[in-house]
């Protein structure tokens, strides 16, 4: 009798759990991935893009220094291959013409080459420095190079209001080596599926940085944030990326993203 009741209880609970899972269609991991994938795939087919931006570095005392740069990106629609990108510095003037070419990979280290205009020298560089600061900013190399869907594993946490919108909150953990983060928590809105905010947790698990993505604009169905503010909550340093208008479909090709081109950019 007692045993029967227990078995009955277990059956009922099991059914209830199974039903709940079916209704939800997925585990938190699957749901997290779905939300991230929907967000990542919202710009599929953009082809290529070019944009100019200002990078404003601000230290804890509020002193500012500014860099201007151009970024060209070539989309690789296959999610098992990373995008190609080219970053070209305009200012400060002493580093004008410095360029970084990246062929992003998913789990393997990216291929990266740096062009140093003073010597006209192209250098293959190590990309294992994922967590190092990108040109003195609060953005690490791993924040700056292409965020590829399959570089992370995901977990759905819940939903929260974010500004006027409602966001899904998902946790993502780097699957690649040498990351400076144990996890990132991202807020993805339920209307346009864009990332609004990301918290970065360091190797000790403490909150390190907060990234806010603002001024989203829609280019024929493709959303791009135009202000990215990264605040290091441990040092109070901040870096803003302020983007100009994106140009899509500029007709860039593979040959625009080869190392032999780095000395011919200007």
């Amino acid at each position, binding site marked *: 009798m007692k045993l029967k009741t227990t078995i009955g209880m277990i059956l009922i609970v099991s059914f209830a759990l199974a039903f709940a899972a079916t209704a939800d269609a997925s585990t938190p991991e699957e749901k997290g991935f779905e939300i991230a994938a929907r967000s990542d795939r919202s710009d599929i087919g953009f082809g290529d893009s070019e944009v100019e931006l200002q990078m404003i570095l601000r230290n804890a005392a509020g002193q500012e220094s500014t860099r201007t740069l151009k970024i060209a990106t070539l989309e690789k629609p296959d999610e098992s291959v990373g995008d190609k990108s080219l970053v070209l510095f305009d*200012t400060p*003037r002493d580093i004008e013409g410095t360029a970084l070419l990246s062929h992003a990979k998913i789990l393997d280290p990216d291929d990266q080459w740096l062009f140093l205009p003073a010597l006209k020298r192209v250098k*293959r560089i190590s990309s294992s420095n994922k*967590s190092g600061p990108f040109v003195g900013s609060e953005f690490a190399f791993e924040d700056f190079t292409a965020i590829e869907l399959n570089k992370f594993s995901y977990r759905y946490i819940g939903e929260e209001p974010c500004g006027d919108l409602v966001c899904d909150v998902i946790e993502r953990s780097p699957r690649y080596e040498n990351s400076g983060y144990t996890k990132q928590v991202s807020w993805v809105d339920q209307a346009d599926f864009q990332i609004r905010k990301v918290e970065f947790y360091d190797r000790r698990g403490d909150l390190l940085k907060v990234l806010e993505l603002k001024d989203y604009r829609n280019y024929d169905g493709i959303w791009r944030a135009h202000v990215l503010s990264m605040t290091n909550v441990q040092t109070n340093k901040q870096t803003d990326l302020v983007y100009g208008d994106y140009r899509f479909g500029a007709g860039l090709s593979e040959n625009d993203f080869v190392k032999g081109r780095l*000395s011919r950019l*200007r």
Partner: protein
Amino acid sequence: MSIRTAQFAALALLVASSAAVSDDVAWDWSSNVEVQSRLFARNALWPGQGSQTAQVSLAATTELRWRNGDGDQRASIIPYLRRDSVDDERNLVDLQEAYWAREGDSFELLAGVNTVFWGVTESVHLVDIINQTDAAGDIDGEDKLGQPMVNLAWQQDWGLISAYVLPYFRERNYPGIDGRLRTPIPVDTDRPVYESSSEQNHVDVALRYSHYIGNVDIGLSVFSGTSREPRLVPANDAPVLLPHYDLIDQFGVDLQYTRDAWLWKFEAIARNGYSETFTAAVGGFEYTLYQVGESAADLGLLLEYQYDGRSELEPFTTADNDVFIGARFALNDAQDTSVLAGVAWDTGTGETFFNVEAERRIGDSITLELRARAFSGAGPQDLTYAVVRDDYVQIQLAKYF
């Protein structure tokens, strides 16, 4: 005067070519001026060098770049001017770039003056051969003179082929009799001797293939023409050395293997020179410790071995049997502060060269660079005895516009 003529001609050319194309033409103009002072630790050793221990030079560069509306044509003019307080032979008027280039889908044709770098190693640049060295400018061999060329570059999936026709030869400059950091007997650059009867008009040719396969970057090159390195031969009629420029053929290979924080580098050449065919090679690694001590700074450790099999009849080299050990410290701050320190030690003779280079940006448009160099271990029979009293500190301020 000549520089103004060159600038005017450049401007005229650019204006003329821009008139032929549509709107959306992109112009970019920037300049910098720098003041450099060298403070020598001791009085000079050789006759004629004078007694001053300070040497100041001023240099100016302006860059004018143009790209047409379609983006398939570009041009560049970069004159460089230098004046030295002590040594007239360090004065220089040069065009680092003055070219026009036309791009296609997979090729680019460039005609004019350009500067090109080949190679991967840090302590010596064996493979790099297109441009003449501005040896009066700096002893590290990294300052170059613009080279007139026609260059056709062809990009394929399997790599980049770049062919060069080099119709005019640039002579190497050397410090004059007043200058420091020179040979005991000065080089008379007004009396060069060429193996080719066409002298400076001999047409040199070069071909380079470069590509990467996974973690390996590879470059193969061949050069045929007048050697950028002269033999320095005593003149019969005066106490000077005359530069002798021989015709050479040189094959080069450069390789880099990049894995994790390791860069493994190798360069080798085989040269059919004046007296013989010889080989030279340099190889080693750069290993970087990222974010040392939980700071943002990186510390790179460098080790390279230099071998050179040339005989004493060939142009002299100090990098013949040397170990180079270095450290590169990059703060990764907003001012891009970095320090590079290195020692090159000749395992045969014991001659040692110390080098420290530090740089930092001040504000948005000024850079400060410090260099300290010292020489030790040379006996009177050794090559670097020539500069045994020339240890110096160099402070350089540059303003960018």
